[in-house]
């Protein structure tokens, strides 16, 4: 690597630490002399390590330091020494209580003293009414001397275990067994040393180039940028993730469907979600006794209970239901309820919009229409059912269209919406189409799926709404399955997910 480029990429921390490595190697030393925090030194070392300027070595060290009691004994002497010294003052034979008082030793420490001193044969214990201690001559000798342990306590801490002399090691082992005198910790320490490249960089001189971290408006104004070199970055480095606002995945999917349909020459239809039974069902020639029309098939609105329906049109629909008036049909032969038809429900099917379009002065013949509509049906919510769902459906109206055109159209849809080259068309049943067909499409990954339903609107439906009989191909696509596949979700409830993390992180492809 070009040494110049390498040097220009050095961060301020690195510039401070690198020269110090000629003299120091440990993090605390480097921190002290660079006036940086230890963490800053660590980061600098890490970066320079990546750039091969330094070699990092990790060492495990056993560090010995004084604990609470150790600090105290260092100043006062060990309790057993104090014990002996007190006895020297009182006499060679004395009661334990007396000694404790004179040596200022607590009850707990007395026991330790007795143990330690008897082990060294410094005292013997004489049982009796009161426990008496007798100092041996060896004890008297010891009282005058500083013990190995005390010598050890006075050395510099923290220190490394491996640096201890033999007698120090002995004292350390003794003290280590006792409570809160010394601490032994295992530490991983990092040491850095210059590599040949590091030395080369220092020899080249890292102070020669003045570098800046950021371009500032002041530099731009003064022109100082011309004499400034900018620290180069490690562009391969990982940076923290950000999230950004975007369209809802399902909404985006529906947008795509919309634009495809518009591309195929369809015009979008709109209509109310609170709909009368008239447009939702009666206008579609669904008899009022049809099972989809009871309380298990539709949501009924409390208030307003009834909506308005164009009377003249309603009279034609009524006559079509009752006796098939206007066509050669015999009709459903029942008494059409003109009040019920005004009943407000929540739209159960997107086909309501097609009915409205057929009766609308805006209808163009030939014409293609579609809707992506929110529809509602009473359903127990589970992984495959929502009471509130989107339907994609539409019509094609033109003189002379037949089932063969319907098949052609369905093949086009299968390709557009399910990337399917193969389709199967089966006889189906919908109250408003005759003939009716169901479409299966061979999805490249899901295999055969039900793509939707279609058919040719019944004349009993078309005539009252439009005033004449003409071919109207009707189709509906079950979009949810494809949406779930495209969005990679298994549970339909996730279409309307209220999980912000999912929305932020859902893949955009």
């Amino acid at each position, binding site marked *: 690597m070009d040494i110049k480029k390498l040097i220009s990429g050095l961060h301020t921390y690195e510039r401070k630490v690198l020269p110090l490595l000629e003299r120091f190697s440990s993090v605390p030393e480097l921190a002290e002399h660079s006036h940086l925090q230890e963490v800053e030194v660590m980061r600098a070392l890490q970066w320079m390590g990546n750039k091969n300027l330094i070699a990092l070595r990790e060492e495990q060290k056993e560090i010995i330091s004084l604990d609470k009691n150790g600090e105290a004994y260092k100043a006062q002497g060990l309790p057993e020494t104090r014990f002996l010294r007190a006895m020297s003052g009182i006499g060679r034979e004395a009661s334990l209580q007396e000694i404790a008082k004179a040596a200022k030793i607590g009850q707990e420490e007395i026991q330790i003293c007795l143990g330690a001193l008897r082990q060294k044969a410094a005292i013997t214990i004489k049982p009796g009414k009161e426990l008496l201690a007798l100092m041996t001559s060896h004890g008297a000798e010891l009282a005058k001397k500083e013990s190995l342990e005390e010598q050890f306590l006075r050395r510099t801490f923290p220190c490394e275990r491996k640096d201890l002399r033999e007698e120090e090691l002995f004292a350390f082992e003794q003290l280590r067994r006792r409570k809160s005198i010394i601490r032994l910790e295992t530490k991983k320490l990092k040491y850095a040393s210059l590599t040949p490249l590091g030395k080369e960089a220092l020899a080249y001189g890292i102070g020669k180039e003045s570098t800046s971290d950021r371009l500032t408006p002041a530099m731009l104004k003064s022109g100082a940028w011309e004499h400034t070199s900018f620290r180069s970055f490690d562009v391969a480095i990982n940076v923290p993730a950000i999230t950004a606002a975007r369209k*809802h995945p399902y909404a985006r999917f529906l947008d795509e469907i919309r634009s495809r349909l518009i591309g195929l*020459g369809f015009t979008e239809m709109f209509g*109310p*979600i609170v709909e009368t039974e008239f447009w939702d069902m009666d206008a579609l020639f669904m008899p009022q006794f049809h*099972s989809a029309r009871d309380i298990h098939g539709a949501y009924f609105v409390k208030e307003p209970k009834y909506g308005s329906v164009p009377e003249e049109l309603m009279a034609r629909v009524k006559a079509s239901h009752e006796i098939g008036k206007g066509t050669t049909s015999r009709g459903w032969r029942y008494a059409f309820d003109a009040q019920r038809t005004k009943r407000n429900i929540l739209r159960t099917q997107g086909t309501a919009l097609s009915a409205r379009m057929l009766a609308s002065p805006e209808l163009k013949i030939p014409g293609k229409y579609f809707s992506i509509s929110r529809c509602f049906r009473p359903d127990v919510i589970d992984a495959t059912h929502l009471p509130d769902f989107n339907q994609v459906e539409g019509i094609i109206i033109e003189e002379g269209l037949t089932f063969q055109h319907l098949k052609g159209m369905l093949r086009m849809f299968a390709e557009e919406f399910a990337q399917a080259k193969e389709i199967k068309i*089966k006889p189906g049943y919908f109250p408003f189409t*005759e003939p009716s067909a169901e479409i299966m499409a061979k999805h490249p990954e899901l295999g055969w799926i039900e793509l939707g339903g279609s058919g040719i609107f019944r004349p009993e439906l078309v005539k009252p709404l439009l005033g004449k009989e003409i071919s109207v191909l009707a189709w509906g696509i079950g979009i949810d399955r494809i949406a779930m596949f495209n969005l990679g979700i298994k549970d339909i409830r996730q279409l309307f997910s209220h999980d912000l993390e999912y929305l932020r992180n859902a893949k955009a492809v």
Partner: protein
Amino acid sequence: MPTITFSLKDLQELVGKKLTPDEVGRLVEFGKGEMKQFTKETDEVTVDFDDTNLPYLWSVEGVARLFRGVLGMQKGFSRVTLKKGEYSIIVDESVESVRPFVAGMVVKGKKIDERLLKQLIQLQEKLCESYGKRRSKVAMGIYPFDKITFPVHYRAVKPESARFVPLDFSKEMSLGEILEEHPKGKEYAFILKGKQLYPLLADSKGKALSFPPIINSAETGKINIGEERFFVEVTGTDREAAELCLNIAAYALSERGFEVYGVIVVQGNKKTITPSLQEEKIKVPPEHVKQLFGLELGKGEIKTLLEKAGFEVNSSGTVIVPPYRRDILHAYDVVEDIGIMHGYESIGEKALISYTAGGTSPKAKLSNLLRELAIGLGFQEVMSPVLSNKGILHTNMSLGNDAEAWPGGFSTIEIENFMSETYSSVRSWLTPILMEFLSKNNHVGYPQKIFEIGTASVQQSGKAIDHEKIAFAAAHEKAGYTEVRQILDYIMRMLNIPFTVEEIEHGSFIPGRAGAVIAHGKTIALLGEIHPKVLTRWGIIVPVAAVEINVGEILIAGMATDNKR
């Protein structure tokens, strides 16, 4: 959509041909059915039938009939010959306002076995539940013939004036008690709600047969394996539907080897022989086949296909519809069957004729533009169900009643037959929906900036009105009025709509920090800082500011501004 099950062996015997489960699956498609399952161990086939107007397919006999036609083993239909019998049902005029129609037949000559009994009960149940609209429109009863002394009387009586032991019970009960205590009584009591008199079938000795459409008598209304003579009756509110059900049963039983005897229904001076077995006739112009399917078929071909579908064609070309079908309203219904028998797969495909220019509405375009602006402002789009509830829309928003949510007042549209309280109203505004969203995401990193665009519906002056709305919510430590006001300003500036903001009192917002946005003389938006009471109710842990805009009003205001230019 009725689901029926039957034994594959039974089907094969009735068809007269061995069939694999795959073949059955393919053949039921001709009846708009779908085979769901075949269980080898039990030999049981399960089929869903789409067409609710073809009830003859809801038993194995009907399915076998369809298959024989498709396979070319039977042309048209073979008529049931009605035998003359001395059996009658005497109808009292009291049933007129309760359940006016009754019809019946007697069948004899075949020992009933378990398989047949199962099919008979299935057919009866599907006809009554599905086609008969949970027995309200039609109900069917089957009785051992030997326990009945004809004539049978059909009349409506006071709830306490008749008593018998109903099926599954051991004590005698009045009709009123049956409705209150018997499980079937409770299940079907809705049919007789508000009636002063209840229907009763009894024989000439006064022995009760049944309390239609609720329950049979334990003594005279239970069929046992091995019996070979039965009385079958249907009652209902729709003569045509009741007759059809009896015709279907007559055909099914006749094909099983029973002889069918007519029953005379006596209404005053009027005597009618049932089952009617009436055949309808319809003219089917051959050009209809071309109109619907684009097929050029000769008369002979059409006739062959019609006979496969179970129709007959007489010498003048008129199509005769078998008595077990009442789904033919229009010649197209017959033509569809011609197409089905021809095979949908073998019908050609054609490209559409005309090119048309696609497009969408100005409102949809505006909505899309607003979404674009919202995302540009750093707000994440969310999408929620339109169904919500008053707890979310008002209570949690600290509003006393509906009218307080939006200046001008409205009320929320509630659902009469909701299935779950959670989805019992249509959302009337979107801000609460965003609060609900935020409340579920306390654990996710802030700031949280979200928006939703979509329909909210309200009741205003007696009408249901849809409003397309967009609402924004900013939730973070420093969320406040300024932020949402800036959003509003930005959008209005981009759309070139002049507006003013007036301070309003609104339970959902902090007093003095809530505004109504007026443009073109109308309130088109609301904005403010959400009241801590509301945040606490939702359990939201940071301040929230929100703005909700009526897209439809913006469109109108935008057009008005355009016109002035």
